[in-house]
């Protein structure tokens, strides 16, 4: 049985510190754009923390929700791609194959979570910021769609290492950068096909729900709602 990678995000733990956001930038060679580009809404965040206000002052509350690619089981973004740049892997990942992407941006329109970002220009780094680039991950070129991969490079590396040690992957062998960084432990990653994994156990909690569940996209991310 292939792994089915999934994530649980406990909104009761999430404090909106955004460590995940920077961790993701660092891990995945995500470019910062520029103030001008940012003003056009062209930032490249693969994960962002949504903030929703509730109520009026003084009975006001804010809720945070980290939103990243939900790695949907029935992903609206996948079938619309004419070149198979977006497809579903056997391990439940919603893959984005950069070299196949011709930049129709159809997938980004189809994505109800708006978590796909487009390289409007080829990214640039002011020297020597390019030295920070993670050699494990491609630097995407202009005209290519990208999004959260569940840090598939870490999954691949963990599989290679496990294979080298002649063993199966264990729960906790793979942690995407955001999960690794989350100080409050709000994010848990693992194999949903293994009923004993931490992520499976958490996903079964009554607090769990999927984002925009009614759309039938079958996200691999379960949100545990704030109590």
């Amino acid at each position, binding site marked *: 049985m292939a792994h089915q990678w999934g994530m649980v995000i406990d909104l009761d733990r999430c404090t909106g510190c955004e460590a995940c956001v920077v961790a993701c930038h660092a891990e995945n060679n995500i470019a910062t754009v520029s103030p001008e580009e940012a*003003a056009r809404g062209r930032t490249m965040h693969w994960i962002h923390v949504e903030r929703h206000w509730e109520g009026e002052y003084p009975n006001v509350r804010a809720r945070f929700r980290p939103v990243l690619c939900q790695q949907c089981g029935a992903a609206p973004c996948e079938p619309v791609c004419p070149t198979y740049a977006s497809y579903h892997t056997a391990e439940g990942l919603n893959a984005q194959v950069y070299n196949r992407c011709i930049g129709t941006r159809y997938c980004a329109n189809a994505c109800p979570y708006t978590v796909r970002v487009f390289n409007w220009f080829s*990214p640039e780094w002011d020297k020597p910021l390019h030295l920070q680039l993670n050699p494990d*991950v491609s630097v995407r070129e202009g005209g290519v769609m990208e999004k959260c991969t569940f840090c598939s490079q870490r999954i691949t590396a963990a599989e290679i290492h496990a294979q080298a040690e002649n063993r199966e992957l264990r729960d906790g062998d793979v942690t995407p950068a955001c999960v690794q960084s989350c100080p409050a432990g709000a994010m848990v990653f693992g194999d949903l096909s293994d009923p004993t994994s931490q992520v499976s156990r958490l996903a079964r909690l009554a607090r769990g729900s999927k984002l925009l569940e009614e759309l039938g996209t079958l996200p691999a991310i379960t949100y545990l709602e704030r109590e």
Partner: protein
Amino acid sequence: MRGYSRAIILALIATLVTLAGLSWAGIAHSRGKAILRQTAFVQNPIHSVPATPSSVFTTAHASFNDAVREFLGLQSTPVQPIAFNHRIHIQKGLQCTTCHTGVTQGPDAGIPSTNFCMVCHQVIAAQKPEIKKLAAYAAKGQDIPWQRVYWFYPSTHVRFWHSPHIRAGLGCEQCHGNLAQQTVAVRSKDLTMNFCLNCHVAKRVSVECITCHF
């Protein structure tokens, strides 16, 4: 007759005006993300202008020529600073892994530094012209600027791990040709996607796109 030609002109003008209005006034008003220009400022004058960001690392092409070459998949033949002879080293009994140490452990095979070469060549064949070049590099404290022989364009987004392939029992020659027959390494295999896929399909290993493209 005159009447409707004027009407057409008016309609055209109206179209243009609508378009202009659309683009500059109506569409992107207010609440969106795009509120251009940033004008928060302090009263103190800014006395030095920040340096213009210089673009150094980019996947964009240096020239149109590069772009065309990449599009056509053309790779120029590397010219090595020293005519390293693979055949002799293999004949003398050296293993590939003696120098390419990373190949069993990580993604990259790696090339040893000048110092490593000099461990042997301090003595061995020290008088040969190519070895003298090597010694000259070593004396200057410089590494040899080897040229890559096998590589992919960045736009292919290919990530390749050597170690799993070595563990799977693949010989180096599968992808690099028989280096025991080569002097200076040349690109003797065309490492296309077809080449990789055929092997992956034959050996029933993953043909998921993201196995290699991530």
